[in-house]
Every structure is written in C-alpha cells, then in structure tokens.
C-alpha cells in the first residue's frame, strides 16, 4: 500500500530517485509532478497520480490509478493535450475531474511552465545561433607548425625590401627621392661599354665615373642635395684633375665628414672626393682637401 511504500522509501530507507541537498530533497523520477521528494508528490507512494510531460514539443497528460497498479505496462495512461492553451486546460480539468485538488493544481502549473519554455525555444531558434565548432587538436597543431615554417620560408623583410626597391626602380615614387644615380648609371654603363680600351680623357672620365659610381653609393648615404648633383656635373667635365687627386687620395684615408653617422658596412673604405671643395676647375689653384 502506498503508505508502506512511503514509510520505507521516502522516510527511512534508500530511494534511488531521491537527491538530498542541504535544504531540500529532490525526486528524480520522470513522472514526478513537482520534482521535490514529498509524501504527496512521490509517484511511487501515491496510487492515484497524474503528471504533464512533453515530447517533441507536444504535451501529454499521464495518469495512474489504483486499478491498474497490478499491470505495470498499462499503469500510465496518456492523453495528448490540445495545442491551444485554454482548451488544454479544460482537457486537464475534465480528465482529472474528482481528483485531489493538489494534483489538479500542480498539473496545471506544470503545464503552464512547459508551454512557456516551448514558446521561448521557438523564439530562440529564429534568432541567430552561435555555432560551436570543436577544434581538432591534431589539426591545430599541424596548422601552427606549417605556419611557422611558412613564415621562415617567406623571409618577409627581404621580400618587402625587394618589392620597395623594385618600385623605386620603376619610378612609382616619381621625383620624391633624389637618387640621381639611377639615370646616370645607365648612361655610364653605356659609355663604359663603348669606350673600354681607350686611354683618352674619355677613358679617364669613365674611370672617374667608374670610381665615382663606386663611391657614389657612399656619397648618397649623405644627404643627397641638388647641390651635390650640380657639383657632380662639374666633376665629370674636369676629369684629369680629379684623376690625379684620386690617385693621391688613394694613399690616404680620409674619414667621412660626419654629416650623418654611417653604419658599419657603408663606412668609407676609400677616400672620397669632397665635392664642395672642388668647385674651381683651374688646375693650379687646386689644393688637396683632405
């Protein structure tokens, strides 16, 4: 009889559906109406019991009566409730007519709660949903490794520098950067190609310019003003003197003027022509400016 069942399971001995916490006892039975472990809400300890359960969005009313207590398979009778809220409430009422007040009330409460959360589910599925995609460890590791290797293979700084220099060569920057060498170099290379084995002033000029082209790199590391440009013009015209002077200067090492601090690899190894001094083209008045 239900009283005995309650005395055993509910109060004294073990009930596998019972969960005890500090303040409350809960019942894990899926037919439980309220979810708490009480004398009146235990489906095992009450021979006349009813619940509301929902499956796939439809609500059912489950009922258990004493007459069927001997047939566990047919114990729970289920009734599909109407989709309409009020009509479903009426259905509950007419099915649970003459049942104890407690069960009727709790059934209706439970039904209300269930319909509310079903409505919420339907609303949420319409909104955007965050999809959780699991990371696969092996694949993550593989991709990280490959990324590192790709980074090493890419040699980004070199690539960027190369690209920038390419763009400089192709004149995308226009006139902003005054590296007059560029045009010069081409012309000079032509000249060099033409007059290679002559020992005229031409050759000296070429030699000059050869050496100059070597040296010009260093010169350009200084501020490349237009004044330098003009002076270099004059430099070419007066060839012999520079030739001599260079020969002299080759022996001595003169340091840079110290306009801009040069880094190691671009430090002058050979004396360079201090262009500003060589403005006069008179051979005699020239002094070696060291």
């Amino acid at each position, binding site marked *: 009889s239900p009283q005995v069942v309650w005395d055993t399971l509910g109060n004294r001995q073990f009930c596998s559906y019972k969960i005890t916490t500090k303040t409350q006892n809960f019942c894990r039975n899926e037919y439980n109406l309220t979810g708490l472990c009480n004398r009146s809400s235990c489906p095992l300890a009450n021979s006349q019991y009813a619940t509301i359960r929902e499956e796939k969005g439809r609500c059912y009313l489950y009922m258990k009566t004493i007459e069927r207590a001997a047939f566990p398979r047919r114990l729970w009778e289920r009734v599909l409730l109407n989709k309409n809220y009020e009509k479903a409430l009426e259905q509950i009422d007419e099915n649970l007519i003459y049942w104890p007040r407690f069960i009727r009330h709790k059934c209706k409460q439970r039904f209300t709660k269930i319909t509310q959360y079903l409505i919420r589910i339907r609303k949420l599925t319409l909104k955007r949903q965050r999809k959780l995609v699991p990371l696969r460890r092996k694949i993550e590791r593989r991709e990280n490794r490959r990324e590192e290797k790709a980074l090493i*293979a890419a040699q980004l700084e070199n690539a960027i520098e190369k690209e*920038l220099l390419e763009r*400089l060569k192709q004149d995308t920057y226009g006139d902003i950067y005054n590296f007059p*060498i560029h045009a010069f170099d081409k012309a000079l290379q032509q000249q060099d190609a033409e007059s290679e084995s002559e020992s005229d002033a031409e050759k000296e000029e070429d030699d000059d310019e050869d050496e100059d082209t070597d040296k010009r790199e260093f010169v350009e590391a200084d501020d490349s003003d237009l004044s330098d440009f003009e002076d270099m013009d004059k430099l070419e015209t007066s060839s012999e003197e520079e030739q001599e002077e260079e020969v002299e200067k080759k022996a001595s090492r003169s340091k840079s003027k110290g306009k801009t601090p040069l880094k190691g690899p671009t430090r002058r190894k050979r004396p360079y022509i201090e262009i500003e001094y060589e403005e006069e083209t008179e051979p005699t008045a020239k002094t070696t400016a060291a």
Partner: protein
Amino acid sequence: GGGGSAAGHGGPPAPERVLFPPTFSVSEIKNKQRRHFMFLRWKQQQRKEKLAAKKKRRKEREALGDKAPPKAIPKTIENQRIYDETTVDPNDEEVAFDEATDEFAPYFNRQTVPKILITTSDRPRGRTVRFCEQLSTVIPNSHVYYRRGLALKRIIPQCIARDFTDLIVVNEDRKIPNGMLVCHLPDGPTAHFRMSSVRLRKEIKRKGKEPTEHIPEVILNNFTTRLGHSIGRMFASLFPHDPQFIGRQVATFHNQRDYIFFRFHRYIFKSEKKVGIQELGPRFTLKLRSLQKGTFDSKFGEYEWIHKRREMDTSRRKFHL
C-alpha cells in the same frame, strides 16, 4: 661484441666474399644508456662523413674552376609545388576581362572610395577590442563599432545604406581574436579567414611610433591562382587608391603556402640600393577558410570555395592561393 672477422671458418679464405656474422644494429641494444651512447657515436660518425664529403666536393669544384657543373638547386616546397591549373598568367585576357566586370571593378575604376566597418563578435574582450582599434588606425577611413547582439544579416543592409564598402568582423574565442570575416559590401564576395598569431603593437619588438593618418601603400605578394587573385583584389580594395608617399607606410599581404601574413611597416630609402623598414602596427596571419559569392549568408549562400580538409590537405605540396 659482434662484427668479428670470418675467422675460424676453416677452408680456403675467399677474399672476395667475406662472410660476416650479422652485425647488430644500434637499436637492438636493450640497455638504454648504452644504446644512447652508441647512437650518439653513430651520429657523430655520420656527421664526420658528411663533412668530409662536403669538403671533397668543394675541393673538386674548386679544382674544376669554370668547368664545374652548376650548383644544384635545393628542393624547396615552393619549387616542388604541384602546378595549379588555375594559376593566373599575367597576359591572360579572360582573367583581365573577368576582373574588369567583377565586384571590385568599381573600386579599381576609382568610382568608389573604400569605407570600412570593423566590428567583432558578441562581447569582445580586451585583446580583441585593442586589436580592432589598431586595425582601424592601419586601414584608413575605417570605423569600429561594437556589436551588441545584432545579427549580421540586419547589419549589412544598414551598412549599405550608409555607404560602407567593406565589413570586417573579427571573431573572438577565449579572449583572443581567432577569425576574420571580410565582406565586400554592395553584394560582394565574403571571405572567412582563420586568424592566428596576432601581435598587438606593444608586443612587437623594436617598433616605431604610431601609424600616421597617411594612406599606406599596399604590397600583395604571391597571389598566383585565380582564387588568390580574387582574395588579393579584395585586400587591395580595403585601401584607398592613391597612397601618400610622404607617409612612407606600407601594408603587406604576403601569401606563402596558403598563409597570408600581414605586416605594416614604415620604410626609408637609405640609398638607391638600400631600404630600411621598421615595423609598426599590428601583425597577424590569415588562412582562408571559405569564399562566398554574395554577402554573408551562411545557410543559403553560394560558396565559391570552401576548405575541405579531407580533399585539400592530402598533399604537402599543393596550395590553393
């Protein structure tokens, strides 16, 4: 010990074919310490042999002088890359025609000025927020807006109405940005990337000052296939057309083995043959996950390209970008 000579076999010694009892290999020693020792010794020997071989080869090369055979080119993954039939030939007319009529045509014809909206996924954390701010300093004419639970589908028509040309969504996971969605707006393609190794400005060593407001130049490296081409154009369309060379800033998208590295530098030409670059601005790497034809639509969109791991990751030398 093993490796003994063929002693004790009796009979006439056969000098051509000496019978050794089977030598043990290093891996057969059971004792770990001894095995390790023998292995190290074997390794040293291998190294010595290799060094000796190298020296010999170098001597031979020097001895031959000019007649030496040219140096062998080492095989790299880029050398061995499987030829992709969608590689773009610079003179291809079909490609040129396509590009003249695709969604980026208005940008490349200078009809539109890029205006970018940068946003994140819901509830961004500190790193993502700072990253978005830095990204907006790098990309000129860009605005950061916080997303407060708005659906992308609703944001997009609003953006179009306000004349934005591109939408960037930075996706966040576990407090770090890990994905990026670039959507070209008036029904342009949408590219979804996986973002990794994000470095904010303060984490970059030897960085320069803040990026200024000048329009940077853009460098796009190694986008060879058709797919790569369209992605490259998408990146190019983020930046305004006429870079201000006074600013001396350059943004680089470098594709290497399907990873796109983004860097932002300031350059200075020290001489005609030398340029110095200094990194400022954030850096990150992207890997393309999918490219979709229209604007963002995950359910009904028409995907031009999706990364399918099973099919595409099978070969180490096959790349798609």
